[in-house]
């Protein structure tokens, strides 16, 4: 954590484009920042800004450890990791949901009927916490990808997964039983940076809050 720079960890992948647009709107540099480069650190000496290009799941770790002062990452990653970071702004984009989904044949079941079943997921903490909060117990099977396959090949009865449009679920003949929580991109901060670099972070929080709120208002209008 270099004192004179504000270091921001950014997610590679689908969040990057809207993130860069948001940063540009907030007056931060973004020229030439891309994931299609070997470069993983982008330094803007004049503005005192550094970006770290990371895998989404690494962003909370970078921020918790103080390698980055701030990070922009989905709420889905934050809840699964439970790192000690401050969550400052809901940036509004990158919307997706954690859902419980079952094969079409089971779509008339109630949630309670799934007690003691096997749940395949990439998000064991979220899944475990959700079923516990419902007073249920399930066997959580952690997989690293292709969760939709688990019920088809019979290693799980249901899944907990992240969906944005629901297309993948439909293609695999799965139906949503219930939504666990909604997720959007968030600005997170290292707790110490928030205090030692408050003079730089606080104005940025204000600006981003304003931009995010504007975006939401516009979206509400079009709806």
């Amino acid at each position, binding site marked *: 954590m270099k004192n004179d720079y504000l270091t921001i960890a950014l997610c590679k992948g689908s969040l990057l484009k809207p993130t860069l647009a948001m940063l540009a709107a907030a007056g931060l540099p973004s020229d030439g920042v891309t994931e299609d480069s070997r470069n993983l650190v982008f330094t803007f000496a004049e503005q005192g800004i550094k970006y770290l290009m990371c895998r989404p799941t690494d962003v909370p770790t970078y921020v918790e450890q103080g390698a980055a002062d701030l990070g922009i990452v989905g*709420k889905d990653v934050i809840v699964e990791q439970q790192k000690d970071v401050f969550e400052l702004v809901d940036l509004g984009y990158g919307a997706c949901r954690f859902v419980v989904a079952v094969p079409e044949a089971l779509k008339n079941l109630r949630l309670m009927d799934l007690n003691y079943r096997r749940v395949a997921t990439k998000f064991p903490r979220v899944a475990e916490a959700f079923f516990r909060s419902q007073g249920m117990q399930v066997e959580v099977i952690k997989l690293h990808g292709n969760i939709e396959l688990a019920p088809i090949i019979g290693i799980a009865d249901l899944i907990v997964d992240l969906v944005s449009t629901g297309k993948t679920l439909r293609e695999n003949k799965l139906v949503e039983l219930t939504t666990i929580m909604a997720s959007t991109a968030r600005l997170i901060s290292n707790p110490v*940076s928030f*205090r030692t670099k408050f003079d730089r972070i606080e104005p940025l929080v204000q600006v981003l809050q304003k931009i995010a709120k504007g975006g939401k208002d516009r979206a509400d209008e079009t709806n």
Partner: protein
Amino acid sequence: MRNKEIPKGLRDFLPEEMKTRRKMEEKALKLFRSYGYEEVSTPTFEYLEVIEAGTGRNSWEELYLFIDREGRILSLRPEMTVAIARVAATHLREAVFPQRLCYIANVFRHVQPQKAQYREFWQMGIELLGASGAWADAEVINIAVETLHSMGLDNFKISLNQIGIFNSLLAGSGLEEEEKRLVRRLVENKDLVELGRVLNNARIADDLKEIIARLPVLHGGIEILDRLGPVEKNRQAAQAVAELGKVYDALKAYGVNDHIVIDMGVLRGLDYYTGIVFEGYSSELGYGLLGGGRYDNLLQQYGFPCPATGFAIGMDRLALVLKGPDEEAVRFLVGGTDWESVVEKARELREQGYIVETDVEQCTREELAAKAAKKGNCRVLFIE
């Protein structure tokens, strides 16, 4: 080879590290003593009831618990303030108050080990017992600042708050107990997104919502207290604000206010704090260095009502931000063919204050020179 393992989150300290750590201890103890604080030591483990009476049930998951042969539950100490409160309430009731105590001790918490977070770690701290009021708080906070200075650290901030502000606002809010706990956690973790949502749905006055939403980001000089908004409606909150101002003013006498930041988001996790609370941060480490505050109700738990305030510094975190060890002292390696004169010469040099190793292997001059070259700042004396 399992017999080489040590439990997760624990560490060995090798000579170089121990040198740094002992120096830190010496500097801290010297400073504490110069303010009249006397060192005490308490058992490494205590009955669970003792710990729980102090810290509540919140940190139960972090305790190392075990059962003794009489069937009582024991806990490795997770911190020192509770033990000192117990000692003061049992053995030191007749002392002249205020009573100033200090300690350096290892404490144990079952946390996820990572950088700057270990399952056994060391705390250096002070407790000022039997004094209420701003001057007592200011003395303790100033010693925290001076301790960091004495270690050669300059680039740090102390975040200061009075939890009575938050607690009284919340108490008068009409929120359910569970909602209060939730709001408290959200303010403490600066989860602004969730806090906004919870407050939005809460059935409390709008101006109060606004103040609570602003608390986590109220951070700056003493002037931010003016931006707090209409707290006067809540008499206790207004009193707490006034007290915070008094402590800030009292700190001016020490000339340390450059390091002090008012931070309404600092609530400290422990239940026993009742007034002023503070935390120390260095921009070189992503984790807090020290924490403390006023705990006027804790000693009462052990049958001895008595106001108190104090702080603890995490020695292991401090070690991470300190520069390398000071200049090595000169050491001698004394050898020779005549054992008696070797021993005599070594004694003479030690009396002059040097560190002296005697050659016990009957090495030649050249062999000793080779060994000395591998050590730092080591001179050979070979007696023919």
